[in-house]
């Protein structure tokens, strides 16, 4: 049973990772906590649901959801965050926070209206229910798919960020947009690409979660937002590898808490751990690109 719980945790953690990666990527370039990310994730689940109900095959619905969320995310940047860029850093940062809150609220309200507040789920048979057994573990085809899909996406992203100049461009824009422009970096397209990727990843996470846990609901984003904070900080803001590790860790920790601790303690534990980690390792468990503690350079 212990091993089974670890497996459960790893699969949940893998999906957190998809969600958190997009969120972290946006933080990386924009230095903003995009509170609309949860709503975009939710929108991904909704879009794919309605597409499947309308008769689309699941894989196509997934692609559609990715496209829609990528677009939404890009629009949020283009007509939200970008317009703030001309103001001072602090104004832009706080403004972006509220813009993302507002956009999140708009998306959730639309979803609420469309779904008439109901909890939806994919029709039965959208994804075959099949189980494999071995080593005393049960694993479903869906869980295998989730693990493989997440691994592939994470590897692609890592490749893209590390092996192309894109990753460096992203960081340059984040550090100093003006200097980047002088170096020939088109910050607008860098932003567009990052937001697009983040949105698409959120969509995949949304669809996977909707499939795994059989529920699609307008408020489904919020708990994942909170988890993303945890993951991103434990892993180190801007540190993608750290975010993946932290996601898996969080997934397993939660499974363990559910399995072996008195009920209700799981949240206290997770957030208290987060707090303690931050105090002792202000850069997160795996370090981050951003130096937190105050007084820096000359």
């Amino acid at each position, binding site marked *: 049973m212990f091993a089974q719980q670890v497996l459960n945790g790893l699969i949940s953690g893998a999906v957190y990772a998809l969600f958190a990666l997009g969120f972290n990527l946006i933080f990386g370039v924009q230095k903003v906590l995009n509170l609309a990310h949860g709503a975009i994730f939710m929108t991904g689940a909704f879009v794919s649901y309605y597409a499947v109900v309308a008769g689309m095959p699941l894989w196509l619905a997934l692609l559609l959801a990715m496209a829609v969320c990528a677009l939404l995310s890009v629009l949020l940047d283009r007509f939200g965050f970008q317009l703030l860029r001309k103001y*001072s850093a*602090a104004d832009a940062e706080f403004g972006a926070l509220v813009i993302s809150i507002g956009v999140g609220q708009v998306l959730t309200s639309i979803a609420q209206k469309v779904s008439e507040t109901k909890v939806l789920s994919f029709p039965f048979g959208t994804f075959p229910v099949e189980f494999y057994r071995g080593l005393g573990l049960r694993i479903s085809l869906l869980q295998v798919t989730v693990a493989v899909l997440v691994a592939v996406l994470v590897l692609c992203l890592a490749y893209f960020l590390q092996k192309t100049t894109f990753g460096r461009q992203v960081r340059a824009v984040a550090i100093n947009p003006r200097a980047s422009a002088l170096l020939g970096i088109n910050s607008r397209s860098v932003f567009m690409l990052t937001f697009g990727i983040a949105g698409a990843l959120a969509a995949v996470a949304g669809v996977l979660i909707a499939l795994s846990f059989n529920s699609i609901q307008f408020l489904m984003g919020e708990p994942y937002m909170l988890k993303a904070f945890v993951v991103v900080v434990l892993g180190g803001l801007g540190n993608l590898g750290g975010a993946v590790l932290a996601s898996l860790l969080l997934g397993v920790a939660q499974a363990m808490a559910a399995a072996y601790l008195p009920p209700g303690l799981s949240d206290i534990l997770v957030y208290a751990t987060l707090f303690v980690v931050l105090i002792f390792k202000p850069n997160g468990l795996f370090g981050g690109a951003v130096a937190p503690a105050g*007084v820096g350079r*000359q």
Partner: protein
Amino acid sequence: MATLELKGVRRNFGGVKAVDGVSLQVRSGTVTGLIGPNGSGKSTVVNLIAGVLKLTSGEISLDGSNISTEPADSVARRGVARTFQNIRLLPEASVLDNVVIGFYRLEKASLMASLLGLPSSRKESRELRERGRALLAQFDMSAYENVAAGGLAYGYQRRVEMMRAVASSPEILLLDEPVAGMNDVEARALGKIFARLAEQGMGVLVIEHNTRFVSELCQEVHVLDGGRLIAHGSAQEVMRDPAVIAAYLGN
């Protein structure tokens, strides 16, 4: 009469020995120069004095009391003011507000008076603004009183930094390249102000690459290279030193 004294000060960054056993004094009433090639450790010395960086070893004392381990803000409250090589203003705040914040060390209003808005606190706030304006006039910057500091031309931003540092009537003033980005005439005008401050009893330490400025202003010059002092004396002596010419001046 304040004296700042560095004894065998060292600071390493990983393998880099940025400051490697520096001893020198800054005495009130004098302007001391600190010159040297790029990366020789001059700004690091300022940051060590100001408490921004921790010493690897050695001692820094102010009037005999050791300040080596004090944090930046308490060093400042003891009367050590500084400017930054890469200008750091409060860019959103007006020029006047940038200067007024410089008086912080001198403010006397108690916590209670401040919280309750007692007349003593209010009066003090008013007076400081007046003194700030006087300072602006002295630096010929009155016209910019209400301009946001971030929107000034480079040379004017430097002046704002200096006014802010001077505002606190420091015992010791540390200037890191104060006239970078100014032409000789502008530099000379500022030099006069510093000379006057020294006459009034301030101890000034100046880092500059403008050798003419240094020669005219400093009674005493130290030369750093690779974190070590390689020469010391009057400006004329130092500038003739072959080691200094080789490492720093060229030709």
